[in-house]
């Protein structure tokens, strides 16, 4: 199939950036979206044009590196699919496709479609961990955890930290990401000990980074390739309320 692409090109963080039009010729419907971009880039290199820079790593939908907004939707139109796992069969010949980077003050563009997501790492560094070494895997019956808690923690832990929630949010809020991390720990005994300090520390860091505020649009949930539910945002709000009502510790 043949497609027309409008791609965001930006030399560096200081460049203003603009949309450029490129044809994508002879694209196989079996290709992934990123493979389609690889083909376009080979064409561009042959023409002596700087290839389009985009983030990617595993191309298996598990690493959280790929980050393209396709036709206004982070990771494209398919539900529960990262852009690397989106196949060209979901498009038809002659389609016009807009490709843009994650748009957020907290995610400044480095080049073209590549953004700096270290804000997410700093939120993790603020509280997304358990302070003591919990050792190896304990015996299954050593620390009883209810099935519900184990499942809920696992659902939250499915977050790959790609930042699509931020890209999808009308306010560029990072709440779904932070909520997933806060909930993942708060549901397990090892994480519960520091739950109160953690939620405060991570939210404070989230605010410092310049993410927007949650207005309950629910766009994040729709864009999340791991289908993290906004019920975790409610969970984080509960954790935060509990923490701010508790006597201050440390």
């Amino acid at each position, binding site marked *: 199939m043949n497609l027309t692409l*409008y791609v*965001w090109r930006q030399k560096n963080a200081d460049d203003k950036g603009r*949309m450029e039009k490129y044809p994508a010729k002879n694209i196989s419907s079996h290709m992934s979206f990123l493979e389609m971009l690889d083909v376009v880039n080979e064409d561009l290199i042959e023409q002596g044009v700087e290839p389009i820079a985009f983030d990617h790593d595993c191309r298996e939908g598990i690493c959280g590196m790929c980050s393209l*907004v396709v*036709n*206004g*939707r982070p990771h494209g139109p398919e539900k529960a699919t990262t852009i690397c796992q989106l196949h060209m069969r979901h498009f038809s010949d002659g389609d016009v496709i*807009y490709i*843009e980077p994650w*748009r*957020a*003050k*907290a995610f400044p*563009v480095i080049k073209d479609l590549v953004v700096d997501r270290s*804000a997410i*790492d*700093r939120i993790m*560094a*603020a*509280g997304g961990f358990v*302070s003591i070494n919990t050792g190896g895997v304990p015996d299954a019956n050593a620390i009883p955890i209810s099935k519900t808690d184990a499942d809920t923690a696992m659902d939250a832990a499915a977050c790959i930290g790609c930042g699509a929630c931020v890209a*999808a949010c*009308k*306010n*560029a*809020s990072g*709440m779904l990401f932070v909520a997933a991390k806060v909930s993942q720990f708060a549901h397990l005994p090892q994480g519960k000990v*520091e739950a109160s*300090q953690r939620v*405060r*520390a991570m*939210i*404070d860091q*989230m*605010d*410092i*980074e310049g*993410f*927007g*505020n*949650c*207005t*309950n*649009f*629910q*766009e994040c*949930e*729709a864009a999340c390739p791991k289908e993290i539910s*906004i*019920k975790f*945002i*409610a*969970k*984080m*709000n509960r*954790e*935060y309320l509990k923490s*701010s009502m508790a006597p*201050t510790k*440390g």
Partner: protein
Amino acid sequence: MDTMQVSTMCHHRPVTAYKTSIGMKLLMGITGFIFIGFVTGHMIGNLQVFLGAEKLNAYAHTLQSLGALLWVIRLSLLTFFAVHIFFAIKLYFQNRASRPVKYVKEVNVESTFSSRIMIWSGLAMFSFVVYHLMHFTLIITNPEYAVLKENLDVYSMMIVGFSNYWISAVYMVAMIFLALHVNHAVFSVFQTFGLTNAKWIPLLRRIGNIYALIILAGYLSMPVGVLLNIITLH
């Protein structure tokens, strides 16, 4: 990592709650919840217009006889109103600043129309409340109501007011904005306070829709009742 401030759990001095994003949202939620209550009570009280002049005017007398308490309620409501608006505007500008470069292609997937226009329906409500107070409470826009107001003849004031097409139109448009605002507010309050789960999120959205329709129908029934001569002066 080295250029940015990182607040870790161990050396963390918590930021005062109301200065954080969730703290501000909680303030929006609690004041908003009070207004959902107020809007409901105000509607039920005024719907007594359908029971006749005596009932509605007796209700007005009861409210007036609260004396000092009435002023406590009024001043509290004004304070909550100010807090709600102050943080709404602050959050609006913060949110705008969080995305300095807009998308070329912008789409809406899950977000509802009412959720996207909260700031505008809110500002419409603010303008309406200013007009509403000047109209019926302070008697600035229609000084001819002064005699009715002195006798606490709320019934006649409402009918005289809504007999004017322009005034009725303003009230009806304002109530559409109110319903849109309430539509998103109901779900939002519960979500912000963490009182939701996977099962209740879609349910609360539906409850919000129904609640907004009840508010809309209740408030619209008054000007419509007057315009259709269902409620008359005599």
